[in-house]
């Protein structure tokens, strides 16, 4: 065929390949960077997320180092020091049985973080699995799985967790983690399913199918990486949710029970000092709020960082 230009294309440079060479220059000005370099740059643009990461890192270090350094001090009581004021070795003073509040708080933070982290693994794991199958397969499989989600969602979660815990052992951290995990995955499943439903029809997924890629490859290589945004959001919400649920459980006496420390049982013990020593309520509460807020902000930051379409502001 001749290079006859159709009417609407008349007067346009036709030497396609040569013309292109000249406009590739712009792209060459930007250095080649790996995905993770770009992700880090995008994350650093997110100021709240950076602060959240910083705060969370401090909490994490405290929750690791202090219990390691002080051993079992968090459960020792010294009757001579009951309700003693703050000092150099006990910045937050001593409680009603003579235990160092600061050390106990660090230990409590540790249990909360462990529970939050472990439970969120279960939540995201089950949620992604169910959501991915549901959204990718569609049809009756989707229908069955989503009705299952509806059923789990309609159960009174706290009641179920209390039942599981009282049945399998009150005060066992593993039972608490599993109980929170297997009741909390529904939101994650829904978010992931919605994303899979959309992405399944995306052109680049269709293109991969046209290439002959198998289901596993399409799910793991094409859809899942693009479904990172809801996954990270689900994880952030999951951490926040698990930490709060654990606190509620311990507050009710079904979670971590004394002498083990958790933010929840510390709150439970100090509730009688609501008027006489309100700052004692403040300590575990502030840590709890910090963990929840930081998880949420950090989630936002990671979500944006993993999105390659997000622009990196030039300096």
């Amino acid at each position: 065929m001749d290079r006859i230009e159709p009417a609407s294309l008349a007067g346009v440079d036709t030497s396609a390949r040569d013309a292109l060479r000249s406009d590739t220059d712009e792209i060459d000005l930007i250095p080649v960077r790996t995905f993770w370099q770009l992700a880090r740059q995008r994350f650093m643009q997110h100021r709240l997320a950076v602060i959240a990461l910083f705060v969370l890192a401090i909490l994490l270090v405290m929750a690791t180092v202090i219990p390691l350094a002080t051993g079992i001090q968090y459960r020792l009581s010294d009757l001579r020091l009951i309700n003693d004021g703050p000092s150099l070795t006990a910045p937050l003073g001593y409680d009603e049985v003579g235990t160092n509040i600061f050390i106990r708080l660090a230990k409590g933070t540790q249990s909360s973080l462990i529970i939050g982290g472990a439970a969120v693994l279960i939540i995201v794991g089950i949620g992604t699995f169910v959501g991915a199958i549901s959204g990718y397969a569609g049809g009756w499989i989707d229908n069955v799985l989503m009705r299952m989600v509806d059923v789990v969602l309609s159960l009174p979660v706290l009641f179920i967790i209390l039942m599981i815990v009282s049945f399998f052992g009150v005060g066992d951290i593993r039972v608490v983690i599993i109980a929170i995990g297997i009741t909390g995955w529904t939101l994650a499943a829904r978010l992931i399913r919605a994303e899979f439903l959309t992405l399944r029809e995306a052109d680049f997924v269709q293109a991969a199918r046209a290439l002959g890629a198998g289901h596993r490859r399409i799910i793991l290589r094409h859809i899942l990486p693009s479904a990172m945004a809801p996954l990270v959001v689900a994880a952030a919400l999951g951490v926040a949710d698990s930490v709060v649920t654990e606190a509620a459980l311990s507050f009710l006496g079904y979670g971590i029970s004394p002498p083990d420390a958790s933010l929840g049982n510390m709150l439970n013990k100090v509730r009688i000092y609501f008027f006489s020593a309100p700052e004692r309520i403040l300590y575990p509460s502030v840590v709890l709020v910090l963990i929840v807020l930081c998880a949420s902000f950090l989630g936002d930051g990671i979500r944006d960082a993993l999105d390659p379409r997000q622009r990196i502001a030039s300096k």
Partner: protein
Amino acid sequence: MTTDSEANTMDDASRAPGATDVGTSAATGSVDGNGARPSDGETLVRVQDLVKHFPIRGGLLGVSKLGAVRAVDGVSFDVRRGETLGLVGESGCGKTTLGKVILRLIPATSGEVYIKDRAMFKQSGNQMKAIREDMQVVFQDPYASLNPRMTVGEIVGEGPLVHGLSNRKKREALVRELLGRVGLNQSHIHRYPHEFSGGQRQRIGIARALALNPEFVVCDEPVSALDVSIQSQVLNLLDDLQKELGLTYLFIAHNLAVVEHISDRVGVMYLGKIVELADVDTLYRDPRHPYTVALLSAVPETDPRRRRKRLVLRGDVPSPVNPPSGCRFHTRCWLREQLGNPENCVTEEPPLRVLAPGQQAACHWAEKISPEAIQSAADRQPTVATAEPAPAA
């Protein structure tokens, strides 16, 4: 009854090389001229009575069927080796769905597609994977068709990887060669799609399609989303690649000028059916279906001195859920009006029949179409202030 006669006509048209094919090869011969394309008109892809209905579900659990969108409703045609078959039609006429069904990206309701005489819908997973090496696709939207999390090298190299080229070095060499072939800088192999312009991205898409060395490529509106200046570059690239590699294209588009430029034969779709299928020159010079006539009259005139009246169709495209009886076009047909509303337009579905060598149309009254008839139909229309500026070039 109607479907039977339709099928017969189709089969006759595609099997008997006599009347139809002589015209075609003569026409293609005159257009391409350089012999890069085999002109014997051997069939590469055959589409037979293809039907795709999307069910509309409702009811308590979403299982009862309320109706169906008849996106593709009994389409048959052949694509010959080395040719470009254009497919035009309004939005929603089913052309993109047809492309996807042919590629088996969405399952067909009924009908069959043969590629190199293999019935595609009967193949198992592994056999299908082998067939996929023979047919590839280029999508419309260069922004949505590339995975934003993969580098150009990974995108273009995925096909070969899936089909067993696991050696990284060899794959990279292949990708570099392909990038050069589509006019991209080979050093961009490690970049991500979002760093490229629309035209460049479309080239990446083309390179991906070529990576498996296919014979048949479905181009689903490959230039519609691009600037006019970039459109011609990409069209010429497709054209060059066809010559170099002996590709066969099914070129889906709604831009008549683009289709005229690139196609050897053109099919016109209306509401899930092909209403006319002809050699490109014949179709544009002497359309034999009232819908094609109306479509062509909507093409902007390049010469501002030539003022002419456009034949404007009244009303909207009817719903594909509930298509009109008989001829689907009868609700908007100017010819039917001119002929005093003959009854068989409403009662009888017109089969696609051979009207001239290399030309088929699905109209009972195709012979009545003449320049005078078109002129008088246009004259009888209420004068619409047709803005007739020279199209932006």
